[in-house]
């Protein structure tokens, strides 16, 4: 955890200013490119609060932390793989 209070992450997807469903599509794109990454999604779309956890349910991910974005604009969602080493048979 750094001084902003955000737990450790590997990638950042900044979709502040874009509206549903774009933040989720960008999150999915990053998750698809780097399946093991812990992704920090930054978003200010009102739908993200419900749609990020709902997407996690679709793609075996977990929303492990939610809080204000590091610079105070919008919110940050930390999305991590459910299983740290996903089996290729289940993907």
């Amino acid at each position, binding site marked *: 955890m750094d001084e902003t209070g955000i737990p450790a992450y590997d990638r950042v997807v900044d979709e502040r200013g874009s*509206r*549903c*469903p*774009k933040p*989720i*599509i960008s999150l*999915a*794109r990053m998750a*698809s490119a780097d399946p093991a990454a812990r992704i920090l999604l930054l978003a200010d*779309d*009102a*739908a993200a*609060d*419900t*749609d990020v*956890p*709902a*997407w996690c349910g*679709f793609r075996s991910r977990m929303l492990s932390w939610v809080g204000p974005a590091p610079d105070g604009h919008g919110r940050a969602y930390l999305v991590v793989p459910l299983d740290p080493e996903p089996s290729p048979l289940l993907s």
Partner: protein
Amino acid sequence: MRQASPKNSVEPPGGFLDAASGQPLRPTARAALDAALDHGWADPARRYHDARRARLLLDAARESVAARIGARPDEVSFTASGTQAVHLGVAGLVRGRVRTGDRIAATAVEHSSVLHAARAYGVPVIVPVDGLGRLDLEAFAGQVGSPGVALAAVQSANHEVGTRQPVAAAVDLAAEHDVPLLLDAAQSVGRDDLPGGWSVLTASAHKWGGPSGVGVLAVRTGVRWRSPSPDDPRETGRVPGFVAVPLVVAAAAALEEAESERATESARLHALVDRIRARVPEVVPDVVVLGDPIDRLPHVVTFSCLYTDGETLLDLLDAEGFAASSGSSCVADALEPSHVLAAMGALTQGNLRVSLPSGVREQDVDRFLAVLPGVVARVRATLGAEGL
């Protein structure tokens, strides 16, 4: 020479699948409206022939509606809309219980008119729901039993996802604490079995194929309800202003017809919704069908399609001749997703509500199911979301 008979009804377009917003006027209601415009135009409160005729029509309509919602005629007043009925219902109950308090226990998934009225006339206490949109009875019990609660507001069934609420249990819990319960029955009247035990019931005629411009406010005898409006003797002092007698007559005729066909029509629509609920996940990838699959309204189903937006889905469906609605944020005025979907923790993007009007043709439902996968695929392709 005899003229060709005028076309008496507008056939609802085959792709109209938004009955929960309001369905087209039933032909029988149109005929009743025509007759009532001729015979029911006068002021029913006056003392002359035409006035008495209007009064007879209004009384008959009131008796008919009262019988069908399980009320006495003198408990039923007509408003200008379902929303006005809700506003007056909430405000009057708060006013009747000023000495108790102004807290209003309302489920998180009430219609926005209920939540707005709760904020305007009191302090809302929100009762959470589960993932199906059904109120949490344990939480409800705690909140309805807390001090200062003027009323509880519970819908008969949810207008977006169709889930029926456990009204009988909620009525019992409210009664234990002498808290009156306002039942928003807008989606159930003429469609589904109505729970009893309410203190105030509200409904809206265009949901059952009556005309727009008529709502129902029923206040049970003995309930402490005080009109929030300036004094006016009309509608038992509950709704100020001249009542729209012809529209009310048409609304009553529509409800009579809806009730007479309800047993067969509800079963038919229930089965068609079953078909939609089963088929959509088979033909559309990454979709979630929401609400209770069994304990639900006969005619309403909602699902959300990942990586799509409700606005474009509605536009493409419209181009194919289908009318539906959406709880996605991009469709809302305030760019907020539906409070119902949010309270359920459901996916809000790409949301579609399909609600079947009475008499909907099976072939139109099947055509919708045939068109939907292509529509969803086109939206995903446009957004570059294929294969994610």
